[in-house]
């Protein structure tokens, strides 16, 4: 009995895999057998298979061992056994990146690729290209060209695909193979044609004109290969996207024509392309939709899957398309293929009416356990968008999500659920309490540190502002007792926030925090000590600055500033004001699309665009004493029309007392080189141009940068102005082919559009997670208030949008979202003004017959800043 059980267990683990118990060192030892003569092909083949298996399992092999095994393997070239030889090719490909001196097999492979044995030729080409680097490419070029146009299809395909791989290293050499690729496109073999078109496109893909020609040529001269057609459709739709082309484009005609192709794969590809085009309207869709509809009821599961997946993706964008397929979709709900069923249901959920939600949710819960995490995530995202669409349904949907949270599932799945719950909470205040409740339950038994800390952070931010904050304390404190250090630290911070925000909870929070003072982990102890001390002071301003709102600097910037400080130690204490602020991505508080990758990106500390600018400016000696960069304008402004001789973009960089204008210039004339390029600025009143940093040379199509530095006016309230700009340079004519320029040139200039400096250029967006706290913290000392009538504005949304843009400040408390149907709204903005002054704005907006009236209140740590901000709108 005991024996039997063990056998069963082994079987489960190994799954009947004969290689299950392989030991790397043993297999490597065995490869020495390759050195023995005569060769035993069967034995060697088996050993090589084991080695390949290990490598494919991700087993890492050291360079020395790999090289030794590789050289042993090269001796197998003696054997003519075809199975063994093909295993050797695989071995070469797998080991080409881990062993040294792999070029040793070059001649052997070249011999096979040009040899008489057709079954060796293709694989030899693939192996050869995997060991060939740029320096060696020349020596195989001739053979590759021949192979591309070889009569044997497998050889030709292998050469074409390998060329694609090679081009990753060296685009230049491959470019010379364009004639051969062209010849191969007219092959009557469908694979060769497809691969050849792929290579041809790859060679030309950076040349839009050439790509356009390619598409128009092959769309007429009909291709034989359906795969080539599919590729051509993709190329065409990409082109349309890049050009912003509409349906009058010949590209579109081509794609639409493909809907009548005889091959299903082409028809599908065309329909897929049309519904995914940016600028499609109901009219164009009308041709593609019947196709998808038909495929939805195809007996082939692949077609059903493809069609429903496409519909699912575009469901939100084109609800009408989906609803015209409703009948078919309803039939797919019970499809035996669960992937198809899931997609059908979630598609219907996304587009269906509120009344159908309950029925569909019931249907889907009947097989939730049968589908993979990947599709469960699709369900989660569908639920999230439903919640946003039917806020009243949040109870049913939230419950569903919370039951999913309790179910088995991997990290990605759980993360998707948690993020959905968070999004719903943020979008729908009514769902907040229920959502926080579910999350509290989840962290009671959550194995993922990342998710637990994320939820604790959310609890700390939102919990204190709910009607009954006290009920969250237990859940949070449990974490302090039960979890690992990272989670404990997050819990301590959350506790402190409750203490700082809710006076009635302060005593108990303090007691709980004091219990953490003896924690075994440094971070937890440090945090607790800090919070206990701050809370003891019982000062609202301190609570706001150090607990509720926290640091506002960019982490990358702080790191750099501290590093510099330690390099040049000084008596003066480190000044936090010199650290660049954490710039808020503009989209931060926007509704996250389900499955958006925004959250992924923010998981890591990344250098922002501004950090990158700061580094670039620091490298210019002329700017070495300007102090730290305060703000860079987010999007470059075009100072030239598109498709003119020269293209110039401007980015504004604001320092404490100076402004640096960065002009990125491109010369689009191939018969000219510009030298000593500068941008002359006619300064607005009070501004003085101090320095020009020229771009020494601007050859054709190679972007270059010149800077103009301006001193800001003495008067602290004078901060805006308009600058007229002129590009000045010396022109030298040059040979378009070689780029060689004449010795003599002449001075010339080119008038650019004006550059505006606005209030927003002096303000950095900084979020205050607790706006109320921050408002109290600054206090009424420099408060200014004014009332405005915004007569040209027609809605509250528009007013909000304009104000945010004007002030260049960060909306807090999601106040950039105006609730539907309301006639008044409060907008809260926060930011830091040049010089490090905190600034807060409260705008109370009300709709009236004549537009929108606004009462604007500004608080700041500096009186002039308040003045500048109040007059920004005027």
């Amino acid at each position, binding site marked *: 009995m005991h024996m039997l059980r063990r056998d069963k267990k082994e079987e489960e683990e190994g799954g009947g895999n004969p290689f299950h118990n392989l030991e790397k060192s043993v297999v490597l030892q065995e490869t020495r057998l390759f050195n*023995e*003569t005569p060769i035993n092909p069967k034995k060697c083949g088996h050993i090589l298979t084991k080695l390949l298996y290990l490598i494919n399992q991700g087993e890492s092999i050291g360079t020395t061992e790999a090289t030794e095994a590789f050289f042993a393997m090269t001796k197998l070239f*003696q054997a003519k056994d075809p199975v063994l030889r093909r295993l050797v090719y695989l071995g070469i490909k797998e080991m080409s990146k881990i062993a040294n001196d792999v070029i040793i097999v070059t*001649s052997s492979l070249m011999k096979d690729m040009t040899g008489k044995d057709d079954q060796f030729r293709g694989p030899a080409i693939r192996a050869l290209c995997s060991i060939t680097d740029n320096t060696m490419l020349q020596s195989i070029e001739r053979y590759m060209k021949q192979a591309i146009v070889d009569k044997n299809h497998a050889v030709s395909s292998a050469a074409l695909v390998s060329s694609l791989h090679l081009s990753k290293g060296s685009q230049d050499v491959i470019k010379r193979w364009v004639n051969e690729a062209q010849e191969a496109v007219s092959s009557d073999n469908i694979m060769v044609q497809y691969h050849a078109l792929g290579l041809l496109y790859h060679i030309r893909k950076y040349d839009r004109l050439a790509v356009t020609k390619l598409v128009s040529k092959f769309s007429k001269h009909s291709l034989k290969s359906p795969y080539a057609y599919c590729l051509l459709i993709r190329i065409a739709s990409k082109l349309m996207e890049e050009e912003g082309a509409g349906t009058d484009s010949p590209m579109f005609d081509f794609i639409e024509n493909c809907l009548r192709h005889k091959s299903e794969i082409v028809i599908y590809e065309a329909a897929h392309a049309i519904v995914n085009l940016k600028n499609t309207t109901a009219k164009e869709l009308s041709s593609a939709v019947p196709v998808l509809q038909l495929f939805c009821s195809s007996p082939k599961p692949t077609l059903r899957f493809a069609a429903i997946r496409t519909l699912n993706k575009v469901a939100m964008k084109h609800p009408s398309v989906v609803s015209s397929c409703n009948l078919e979709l309803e039939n797919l709900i019970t499809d035996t293929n669960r992937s198809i069923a899931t997609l059908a249901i979630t598609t219907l959920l996304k587009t269906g009416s509120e009344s159908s939600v309950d029925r569909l949710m019931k249907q889907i819960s009947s097989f939730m356990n049968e589908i993979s995490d990947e599709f469960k995530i699709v369900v989660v995202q569908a639920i999230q968008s439903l919640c946003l669409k039917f806020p009243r349904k949040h109870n049913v949907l939230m419950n569903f999500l919370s039951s999913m949270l309790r179910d088995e599932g991997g990290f990605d799945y759980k993360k998707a659920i948690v993020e959905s719950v968070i999004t719903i909470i943020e979008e729908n205040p009514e769902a907040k309490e229920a959502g926080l409740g579910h999350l509290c339950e989840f962290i009671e038994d959550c194995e993922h540190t990342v998710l637990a800390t994320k939820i604790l952070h959310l609890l700390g931010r939102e919990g204190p502002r709910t009607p009954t904050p006290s009920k969250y304390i237990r859940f949070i404190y449990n974490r302090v007792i039960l979890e690992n250090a990272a989670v404990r630290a997050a819990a301590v911070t959350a506790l402190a926030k409750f203490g700082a925000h809710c006076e009635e909870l302060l005593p108990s929070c303090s007691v709980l925090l004091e219990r953490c003072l003896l924690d075994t982990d440094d971070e937890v102890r440090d945090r607790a000590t800090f919070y206990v001390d701050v809370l003891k002071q019982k000062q609202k301003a301190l609570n706001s600055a150090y607990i509720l709102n926290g640091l506002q600097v960019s982490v990358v910037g702080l790191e750099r500033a501290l590093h510099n400080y330690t390099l040049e130690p000084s008596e003066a204490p480190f000044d936090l004001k010199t650290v660049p602020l954490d710039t808020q991505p503009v989209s931060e508080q926007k509704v996250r699309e389900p499955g958006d990758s925004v959250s992924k990106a923010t998981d890591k500390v990344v250098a922002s665009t501004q950090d990158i600018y700061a580094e670039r400016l620091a490298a210019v000696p002329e700017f070495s004493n300007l102090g730290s960069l305060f703000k860079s304008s987010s999007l470059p402004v075009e100072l030239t029309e598109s498709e003119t001789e020269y293209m110039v973009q401007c980015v504004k960089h604001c320092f404490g007392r100076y402004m640096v204008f960065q002009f990125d210039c491109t010369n689009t004339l191939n018969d000219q080189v510009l030298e000593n390029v500068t941008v002359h600025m006619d300064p607005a009143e009070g501004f003085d141009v101090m320095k020009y940093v020229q771009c020494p040379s601007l050859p054709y199509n190679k972007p270059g940068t010149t800077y103009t530095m301006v001193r800001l006016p003495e008067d602290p309230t004078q901060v805006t102005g308009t600058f007229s700009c002129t590009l000045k340079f010396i022109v030298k004519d040059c040979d378009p082919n070689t780029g060689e320029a004449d010795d003599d040139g002449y001075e010339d200039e080119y008038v650019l559009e004006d550059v505006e400096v606005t209030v927003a250029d002096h303000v950095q967006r900084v979020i205050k997670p607790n706006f109320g706290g921050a408002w109290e913290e600054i206090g009424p000392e420099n408060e200014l208030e004014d009332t405005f009538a915004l007569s040209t504005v027609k809605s509250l949304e528009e007013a909000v949008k304009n104000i945010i843009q004007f002030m260049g400040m960060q909306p807090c408390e999601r106040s950039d979202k105006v609730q539907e149907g309301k006639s008044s709204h409060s907008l809260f903005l926060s930011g830091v003004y040049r010089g490090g002054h905190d600034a807060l704005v409260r705008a109370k907006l009300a709709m009236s017959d004549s537009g929108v009236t606004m009462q604007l209140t500004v608080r700041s740590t500096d009186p002039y800043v308040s003045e500048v901000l109040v007059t920004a709108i005027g």
Partner: protein
Amino acid sequence: MGFFDKLAKWLGLKKKDANVIVVGLDNSGKTTIINHLKPKETKSHDIVPTIGFTVEKFTSSALSITAFDMSGQGRYRNLWEHYYTECQGIIFVIDSSDKLRMVVAKEELDQLLNHPKITNRRIPVLFFANKMDVREAISSVKVSSLLQLEQIENMKNKPWHICASNALTGEGLMEGVEWISDQLRDIIDGGK
């Protein structure tokens, strides 16, 4: 396997196998020599500098020989040693018209013969003083004195032989091949 091969095997007449390594400086004619020795149908018409190595098979009257034709370019010479362990014989090819690099050839030869995987084993060494047809070519006697082949005598375990050859016509090749296969057969049979 053709019918006669099968028959030969059945009769116990199958030739014994031997492994040799073909080395020497680049452009000395190694690949051309091997190509000449190969059976007609596998001959190649287009010989380019070798990168790495290729394996070729040919037969002498006594043996079936597997030759590892190595690349002679400077940067690849350090890879020869990976193939020393299995080789039973060495064919060292010299371009007799390349007087300038005779010293380089000598240096490589010394390194080869003193290599731990070679030096203590009994291995016959065949020298081809190749390109004898070229006008500036020096005689095989001159080549052996420049390479100081007489010193190999002292090693005892390295029987050697030098032939002047012309790989384009095949002149001199058979003599050398017969010599080395006799040597190899002695070793193989003696080892039994």
